[in-house]
């Protein structure tokens, strides 16, 4: 699964730390999700999408191999 959190953050002009604080996780977790090292739970994915005011599938996308 890939995501465009980095792009959405740039549009909203918020840092990894700000996003982490808003969704209640550590900065390391946001960084791991952005670099596709960690796949978040559905709850966390929904929370992140809500921060950006977007639908889940606008932020997270399935890849061929998923």
């Amino acid at each position, binding site marked *: 699964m890939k995501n465009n959190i980095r792009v959405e953050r740039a549009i909203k002009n918020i840092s990894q730390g700000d996003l982490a604080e808003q969704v209640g*996780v*550590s900065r390391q977790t946001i960084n791991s999700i952005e670099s596709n090292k960690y796949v978040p739970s559905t709850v966390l994915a929904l929370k992140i999408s809500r921060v950006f005011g977007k639908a889940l599938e606008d932020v997270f996308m399935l890849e061929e191999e998923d």
Partner: protein
Amino acid sequence: MKSRFLFPYWCRYLGWGLAIAHVPISVIGRMNGMFNILDDQSRNLSLFAGEHLFFMCTALLMTLGLFLVAFAKEKIEDEQIWQIRLDSLRWSIYINYLILIISLVFINDTGHILELNLWVPLIFFIIRFRWIIFRLNQSLSREG
């Protein structure tokens, strides 16, 4: 995220304190003629006295310390930390049983196998867990 069944963050420091405290107690005890009850199981020992008390103050102090270190919460205990925790726990159980099976086959000393079994899962868990968190922090500082 709710993190049940974990000790508060400060327990990590208490745990290191207990694990380190076991070293001087062990050294002083041995200098005063105490022995590890697992070294000589043929002797009859009275409970909560002499060597048994010494065993509790050393082996169990160390085990309790490592247990607290392993299962104390992180500053921010989120779902990624949980995943790393579970993964490290799985690996430590694999390694422990591998060592246990090998030692049961090749070593005829159940006392020391018990001692090994007491520490290996905790020590391996702590090393693996801290190593993954260290690498996460490193990649975070690399990206700024």
